[in-house]
């Protein structure tokens, strides 16, 4: 089975929180090489050639994102996104806590590439322990001369500030994150302008996921071809996949993109005894379901998109034949309703009414027409919102209503509206 160890190398074997351990294994060598022998353009070129695509959800090519920054002489900011709150995703705080120096090294290389002298990492409020571990690691790195003024005696200076959120999924969306980092409510901003043009404090800003940045030292070390030749041509490289749900061994597994869903299932110990997998949610709570006949699909950005779903954050949930999909839909719809920031009417009201409709079904007061209502409301709220959260209910809900309609019908008690 193709489980690999790139980002997860050494986790569980040695204490990588300790900078000495990290350096013994070659840690910070790539940062030193970049800062002392490479130009920012060299680094961007390397990353573009590697084909690295963002691991935060949208899969946007990282090198290209960096090239959007205008050359206007303004300060620039690098922001690492560790808000990790997409249902089913639990890989970023693994890296944050277990190998913080790898994340720091990636942030330093990324900052150098885009010419940022101040980088931030936005850490989800719930990860209090992770925040403490990471803050200590930053101080260790500073003491070792890895960051600060004129690193390695050169001209580049870099400051790194950890920032802790306070509970709000929407702060993972990059513009909401920037507002939150500015000390405001975490409400997404209208785009354009994109953060590359007007981001933190109105200046050019890059927001990258933890996993995306953690790959940078490895790409610098091994060269872009090493990454580009793994997996599908347009969706290359490795990925930490968070597998959960009805499997025997849920966990984070690092694999080459292009591994099949069936292989992922086997890696995670397979289905529970005597059960069969009937559905797969391949990319976090916002993604549409795939079904048992799709198990042999290649797990990569483009194959998932071609099947009307997405790889998203790399959270794969397997559902077996005991699943009540009305309750599964309720769990996710309630999540999005709860996490709506409330700026857009379709997202705020649509989510709330879908949650109530599902509760009416679950509490035995459902109407025949409720099934159509679920489909039509979730469809009508899509595409009318400031940010993708408002469009996140329809994919899963519509896909499971279509596939498992009898399960939803089973809850219907009234063919006609109940009289009061």
């Amino acid at each position: 089975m193709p489980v690999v160890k790139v980002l997860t190398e050494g986790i569980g074997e040695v204490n990588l929180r300790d900078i000495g351990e990290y350096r013994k294994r070659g840690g910070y060598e790539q940062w030193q090489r970049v800062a002392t022998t490479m130009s920012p353009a060299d680094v961007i070129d390397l990353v573009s050639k590697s084909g690295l695509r963002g691991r935060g959800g949208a899969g946007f090519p990282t090198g290209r994102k960096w090239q959007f920054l205008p050359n206007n002489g303004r300060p620039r900011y690098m922001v690492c996104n560790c808000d990790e709150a997409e249902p089913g995703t639990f890989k970023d705080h693994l890296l944050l806590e277990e190998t913080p120096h790898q994340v720091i090294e990636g942030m330093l290389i990324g900052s150098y590439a885009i010419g940022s002298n101040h980088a931030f990492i936005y850490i989800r409020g719930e990860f209090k322990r992770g925040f403490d571990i990471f803050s200590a690691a930053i101080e260790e790195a500073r003491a070792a001369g890895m960051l600060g003024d004129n690193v390695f005696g050169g001209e580049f200076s870099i400051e790194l500030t950890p920032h802790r959120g306070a509970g709000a999924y929407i702060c993972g969306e990059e513009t909401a994150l920037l507002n939150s980092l500015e000390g405001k409510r975490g409400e997404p901003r209208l785009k354009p302008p994109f953060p590359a043009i007007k981001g933190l404090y109105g200046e050019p800003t890059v927001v990258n996921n933890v996993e995306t940045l953690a790959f940078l030292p490895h790409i610098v070390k091994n060269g872009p071809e090493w990454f580009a030749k793994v997996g599908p041509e347009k969706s290359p490289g490795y990925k930490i996949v968070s597998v959960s749900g009805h499997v025997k061994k849920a966990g984070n597994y690092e694999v080459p993109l292009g591994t099949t869903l069936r292989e992922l299932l086997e890696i995670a110990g397979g289905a529970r005894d005597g059960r069969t997998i009937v559905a797969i949610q391949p990319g976090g709570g916002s993604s549409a379901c795939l079904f048992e006949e799709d198990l042999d699909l290649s797990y990569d950005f483009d194959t998932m998109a071609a099947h009307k779903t997405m790889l998203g954050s790399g959270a794969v949930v397997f559902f077996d034949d005991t699943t009540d999909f009305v309750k599964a839909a309720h769990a996710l719809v309630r999540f999005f309703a709860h996490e709506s920031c409330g700026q857009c009417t379709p997202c705020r009201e649509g989510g709330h009414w879908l949650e109530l409709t599902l509760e009416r079904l679950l509490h035995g007061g459902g109407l025949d027409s409720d099934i159509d209502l679920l489909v039509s409301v979730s469809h009508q709220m899509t595409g009318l919102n400031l940010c993708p959260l408002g469009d996140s209910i329809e994919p899963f809900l519509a896909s499971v209503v279509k596939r498992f309609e009898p399960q939803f019908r089973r809850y219907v008690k009234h063919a006609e509206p109940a009289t009061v």
Partner: protein
Amino acid sequence: MAEGRVAGRAVAERDFAAVLAQVKPEAERLMALYPEKRSALLPMLHAFQNVEGWLSPEAMAEAGRMLSVPLSVVESTASFYTLFFRRPIGRYMLQVCRNLSCRMNGADDVMAYFRERLGVGHLQTTDDGTFSYEEVECLAACDRAPSMQVNLEFVYDLTPEKIDELIAAMKAGTYEVAPLPQTAMPARDWHVGQDTGRKSPGGQDVSHPNAPGGMGDPSGIDLIERLARSPYPIEARPTQERLVREGAERLKHAPHNGEVEH
């Protein structure tokens, strides 16, 4: 002024000047970290909450003063985030995951068990002021479902036995996670606004344990059988008295020291 009491345990009289003296150096360090000092708002609110156990109106006002942000804006900002507690809470904040992977692995039973053992529901505090309880969204620990956080420390693979041990240890004061500071009496409903009192069309508390059981029960128990098992009713408990008492306390400390009209 009278000392507040929580279940016979004296709660030190709130001395905000002391709190401020403790937080101020940290607040100054935080403001220097950012190109614009308002960025220090969330970290500063965390700093106050770490000392007081909750985010008091005085703390919000002081943060606003230091950052030159109006109090209304500080309150509006704080209210956006679920981890800022704008009312006093218990010494142990129990936050149990209610999202997909946990519910697929028995979280509905775990939530029902907590409610029964504690005698409180979502967003409530026990009468002795020890436990606050909340059902929260995915905690990024789905591989160890069902999972929760206790004062923001993770607890994994929850079972009834584990919950019993946890509660017993917290009550005995031997639990490995330190209790939160408690500088004021918690009311039963600690959450201001948002979810409180929401009802489903069926008239039930939206996440009531009487609602049908979990998805894909790991023990393989039939859904019908789960429904037939005894539900866990939550007794409606009187809260008026405590709220009135708390309100009177608060007024005593208010600058205008006004009379309470009934």
